[in-house]
């Protein structure tokens, strides 16, 4: 007997019910299965099985699209500007890893063993994180900045200011002007020589308008060169002055500038530099 239209169940509802019951009966592939499936590493039968499963399983098909997003993701080789949320999260994670204490060696602070030749900070500034205190007048920092003890050529200020780090954007490459030599690497990776004293024009975020202290990390962009930490440093008229250690290996680096508050470091900005061998 043929059923009337009103007696017929909905095709779509029936199909959805069928799919739901199939899912409950067969379980789900693991994330490792999904990765192997996407890589085409599974035997035909299992490959087809996962393909069938993805057609009816919303959770797994979403996961599969996420897997594709992860595998397409290309992390920036240069360091992105500061992300306040990420840095706050990092501080929390760092504290947790330290508290965990299971692998303390992994958290060993491996800073530069050769201290950078930098300004000797005023004792009171060492205790108070001025970079967090907008009311501090610039005049207090000005005198300190005159005490630069950098050796060798003093290179002119960077030709272009860097935007506020709080606005996410790709790391900016700024030009570097060397006195007597013209511009080196304008709009490309600016180059400096180890042993040089450089002045970085640092445009501070609106809520970080004081002189310091700051810390500069020189992170190799590739290879196994040693990373260096320079500081504490104090800014004058938004400029940080420091001298590179002579032992720093030539190569491409990303310089990250951090504000210091006790153990806490807040990324202010980052710059890309090429370091050339020192001149003799």
């Amino acid at each position, binding site marked *: 007997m043929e*059923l009337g*239209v009103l007696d*017929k*169940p*909905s*095709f*779509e509802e*029936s*199909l*959805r*019910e*069928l*799919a739901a*019951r*199939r899912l409950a*009966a*067969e*379980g*789900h592939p*693991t*994330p*490792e*299965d999904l990765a192997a499936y996407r890589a085409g590493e599974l035997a035909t039968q299992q490959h087809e099985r996962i393909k*069938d499963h*993805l*057609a*009816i399983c*919303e*959770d797994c*098909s*979403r996961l*599969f*699209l*996420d*897997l594709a997003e*992860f*595998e397409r*993701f290309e*992390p*920036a*080789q240069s*360091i992105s500007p500061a*992300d306040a*949320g*990420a840095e706050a*999260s*990092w501080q*929390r*994670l*760092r504290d947790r*890893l330290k508290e965990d204490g299971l*692998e303390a*060696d*992994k*958290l*060993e602070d*491996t800073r530069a063993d050769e201290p950078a030749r930098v300004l000797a900070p005023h004792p009171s500034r060492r205790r108070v994180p001025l970079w967090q205190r907008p009311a501090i007048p610039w005049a207090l920092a000005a005198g300190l900045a005159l005490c630069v003890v950098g050796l060798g050529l003093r290179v002119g200020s960077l030709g272009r200011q860097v935007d506020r780090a709080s606005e996410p954007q790709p790391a900016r490459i700024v030009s570097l002007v060397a006195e007597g030599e013209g511009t080196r690497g304008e709009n490309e990776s600016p180059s400096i020589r180890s042993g040089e004293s450089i002045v970085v024009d640092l445009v501070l975020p609106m809520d970080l308008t004081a002189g310091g202290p700051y810390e500069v990390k020189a992170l190799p962009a590739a290879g*196994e060169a*040693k*990373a260096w930490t320079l500081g504490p440093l104090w800014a004058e008229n938004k400029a940080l002055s420091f001298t590179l250690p002579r032992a720093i290996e030539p190569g491409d680096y990303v310089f990250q500038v951090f504000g210091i508050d006790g153990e806490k470091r807040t990324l202010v900005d980052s710059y890309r530099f090429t370091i050339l061998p020192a001149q003799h």
Partner: protein
Amino acid sequence: MDERRNIWVERWQKGIDREESFHQIFRQYYRLVRSFFARRSRSEEEIEDLVQETFFRVHRNLDHFRGESKFETWLFQVSTNVYKNAVRSQTTQKRDAQEVSWDEVETSSATGEDAAIPWEVRENGPLDDLLQDERSRILHIAMQELPPQMRRCVELRVSQDMKYREIAALMDVSIDTVKAHLFQARQLLKKRLGDYFAEAGFAEARFADR
């Protein structure tokens, strides 16, 4: 250059300035991992907790990552397992049920001690149970008779309510192919199942993609 390489992972594994190296790994992938959990969680607090747990496990297990897959693939697996554990934790608080997965036993995995935890809990009986009524059996057979790719298009469209472009992305075919499959499937299913189901071959409205 080997596309699988990640310089910060390599530096960390070689013991070069480990804190800084892990900081860079965290900064590179924070947004990606956060987005993954944001699509699945409701509260900011929960999202942040899951991100923290993911990187905590990455840190604990990074020694075991051998570079046999891309780091991003491994990170996806860790993230997924963290989420599965969170789901399981919430589920077991509500009910006590037997858990199953396709891989009943997975004794070791580089993604951590909880990598083998299955995705969901089983509540219903085997597939045979659902085919005991005639209409379900006929529907099942009719679907199985469709060419596999066509069948999957119908299922994605109906069961998951996916848009054409989403189906195309998931199946790695063109949108036109999806449309053609759905059109043909509708004709076939209508003919085959019209006596048993209303709007057999699914509703015409489904051809008007949103």
